[in-house]
């Protein structure tokens, strides 16, 4: 699966990267990323996740062909 991160998350991860297929839902993705970079754990708790341009909950099932976008809190304006 493809992961895209935005804004401050780019200071913790590449803007876009691939992950293996053993991750099956958003909650496990969040844990996995917190392990990859422990200093991102705090901000990851505040993030929203989107698949196919729709926000999804933590129990949303993800598969290998999905692109998952991770959004830090917004601050437009």
């Amino acid at each position, binding site marked *: 699966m493809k992961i895209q991160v*935005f804004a401050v998350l780019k*200071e913790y991860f590449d803007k876009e990267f691939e992950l293996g297929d053993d991750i099956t839902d958003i909650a496990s993705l969040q844990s996995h990323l917190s392990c990859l970079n422990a200093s991102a754990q705090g901000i990851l708790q505040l993030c929203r996740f989107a698949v196919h341009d729709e926000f999804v909950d933590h129990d949303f099932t993800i598969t290998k062909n999905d692109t998952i976008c991770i959004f830090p809190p917004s601050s437009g304006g």
Partner: protein
Amino acid sequence: MIRSAYSHQAAVAELSEISAGPLDVVGLLAAAHHPKAGAVVLFSGEVRNHNEGMAVDYLEYEAHESMATKMIKAIIADANQKWPLNIAVAQHRTGKVTVGETAVIVITASAHRGEAYAANQYIIDRIKHEAPIWKCEYFSDGTKKWGSNCHC
């Protein structure tokens, strides 16, 4: 169904909610007339030269364009449901925006001014809190900081 200004909507039908280039604030205002609207309210969110005591050189805005566009459209549709508006448009910059430039604009128009003010504030509040748009502040001392709060 959105109650809105069909003639004006036609004029601004091609307006992108997200723009990589400078916002045409003056042009959008000039187009924002409707024969049934007695009140036009415009909000321009601009880049300040200071924030939290730090001198600001410029900002850079990043958006998830397709989702931000869809969310701004939905917020405007909600505003049109809540108030009888003749005009309701909003546009947000991406990319580098310098001090004094407009980062976001909202224009509302209605028969009476109470609705135009209320809808305008509603739209900008929701855009700022909900739309996937982020700013990175570049300070004069060379540091930068991704924003996580509304500053205007």
